[in-house]
């Protein structure tokens, strides 16, 4: 009674992934259309974490809004702060003193390192490797402890202010950061021994989710996603802000454009972050950490766009002032959201198990996607 192969009716299967699935990195939901094991269609649903941060900027004074950017992308809060504060400073025409600029550079690179560590752990968890997750979290905890000593909080730092930074770094803290760098380098090479040439990992991630440079640009990708497709675009040096203007460029690219290339770019960026940290630590000089800022900050009737290179890509803030302490309008350009647009392009034609790996390699943070 077994029907022969031609008679089996092949139906499309609809598979719902998320919003509470651990491998969708937050509350992201996608509905996959499957033909057997192959993905033929993807419908993403987002907005589960929408908290209206753009609207809130119109209802809070500039000073009051300062702790809010931390909540956009809670894994790399320093960059959100820098984007908002940078946009505000551009409107107000303030420039932070040099020591504050260097401190901002240090905390941002520390934060990038922590963010990439978390990404590395969860990405490997997605492809089925459990132990690197524990190792990367151990190191991330140390970075978070450093940031907590400086700012007072582990994730929502509220560290940057219009015209400077909130707390000054003590020499002890700077020494601690410096002492940490060789340790982190060593750990990084430990991960690489473990992962880089692992046959199982390579077979899971190589040649899947490929996007070439032209397409990547058309989709508006940025950050490691774009650089893994061979486009040397890094805002830190292409449109320098703060202290980065003085640093020789170190842009990591890879030509392959697949999931493995994205892994490699991010891991090498972690090493670059550590190098930059060392450079910044040498640049620290004594001086004030706050410029003189009016007590009541009022945005002039102008508009500005300010973008920083976050761990996920170009994080921009478009800010319109109206002469009061409130913003007329604020728009965030979240890199995760733009990088996520390419998802269906990457997924179609691959297997279900690859979907998780590819989604992991995009490195989305839903707090930022949904805002």
């Amino acid at each position: 009674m077994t029907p022969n192969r031609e008679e089996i009716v092949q139906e499309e299967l609809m598979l719902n992934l998320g919003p509470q699935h651990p491998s969708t990195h937050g509350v992201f939901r996608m509905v996959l259309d499957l033909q057997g094991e192959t993905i033929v269609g993807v419908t993403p649903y987002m907005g589960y974490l929408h908290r209206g941060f753009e609207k809130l900027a119109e209802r809070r004074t500039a000073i009051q809004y300062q702790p809010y950017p931390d909540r956009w992308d809670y894994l790399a809060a320093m960059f959100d702060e820098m984007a908002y504060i940078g946009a505000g400073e551009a409107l107000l025409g303030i420039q932070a003193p040099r020591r504050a600029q260097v401190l901002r550079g240090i905390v941002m690179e520390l934060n990038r390192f922590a963010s990439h560590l978390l990404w590395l752990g969860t990405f490997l968890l997605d492809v089925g490797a459990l132990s690197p997750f524990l190792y990367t979290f151990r190191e991330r905890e140390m970075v978070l402890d450093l940031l907590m000593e400086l700012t007072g909080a582990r994730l929502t730092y509220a560290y940057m202010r219009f015209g400077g930074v909130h707390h000054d770094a003590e020499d002890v803290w700077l020494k601690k950061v410096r002492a940490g760098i060789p340790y982190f380098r060593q750990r990084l090479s430990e991960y690489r021994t473990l992962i880089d040439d692992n046959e199982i990992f390579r077979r899971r991630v190589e040649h899947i989710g490929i996007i070439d440079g032209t397409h990547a640009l058309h989709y508006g990708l940025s950050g490691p996603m774009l650089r893994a497709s061979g486009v040397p675009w890094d805002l830190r040096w292409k449109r320098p802000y703060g202290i980065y203007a003085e640093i020789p460029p170190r842009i990591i690219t890879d030509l392959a454009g697949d999931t493995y290339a994205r892994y490699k770019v991010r891991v090498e960026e972690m090493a670059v972050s550590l190098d930059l940290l060392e450079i910044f630590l040498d640049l620290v000089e004594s001086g004030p950490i706050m410029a003189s800022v009016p007590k009541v900050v009022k945005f002039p009737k102008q508009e500005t766009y300010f973008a920083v290179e976050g761990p996920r890509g170009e994080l921009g803030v478009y800010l319109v002032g109206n002469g009061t302490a409130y913003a007329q309008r604020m728009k965030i350009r979240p890199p995760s959201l733009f990088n996520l647009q390419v998802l269906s392009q990457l997924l179609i034609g691959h297997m279900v198990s690859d979907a998780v790996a590819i989604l992991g390699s995009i490195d989305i943070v839903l707090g930022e996607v949904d805002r």
Partner: protein
Amino acid sequence: MRIKQISRGFLKGLQVTGIHLFRRPVTHPYPEQRAYTPPRFRGIHRLIVEDCVVCRACERVCPVNCLTISGVRGDNRRFILEQFDIDYSLCMFCDLCVEACPPHCLVMGPEFEIAAENRHSLRRSLLSQPKEEMV
């Protein structure tokens, strides 16, 4: 060939595991061992009641309006604090109130355990803080 590669990866993994086997654990058993809180840690607020001039700068700057403050004028024209409540279901520990306080009498301490049985008990008065908790 492939067997060789896979077993090489496996051995490398075992090697790293082996190294870790003899390292000290990095986790802390939390309730028995206190969590690490550096001096700048932003935990539950503390108020030096005598120094507060009831200027309400903290109340005005708070982005979520979670402070309720009232005071009466005392004999020497100084304000005396009657009520100083913080609603911890709203507070986001942002430090803005501490920054705004002119006499620096509002600080944030190392306590972070604010779990409560219901919403109303999250509203705490800073006036009735036990003295030994204060720095």
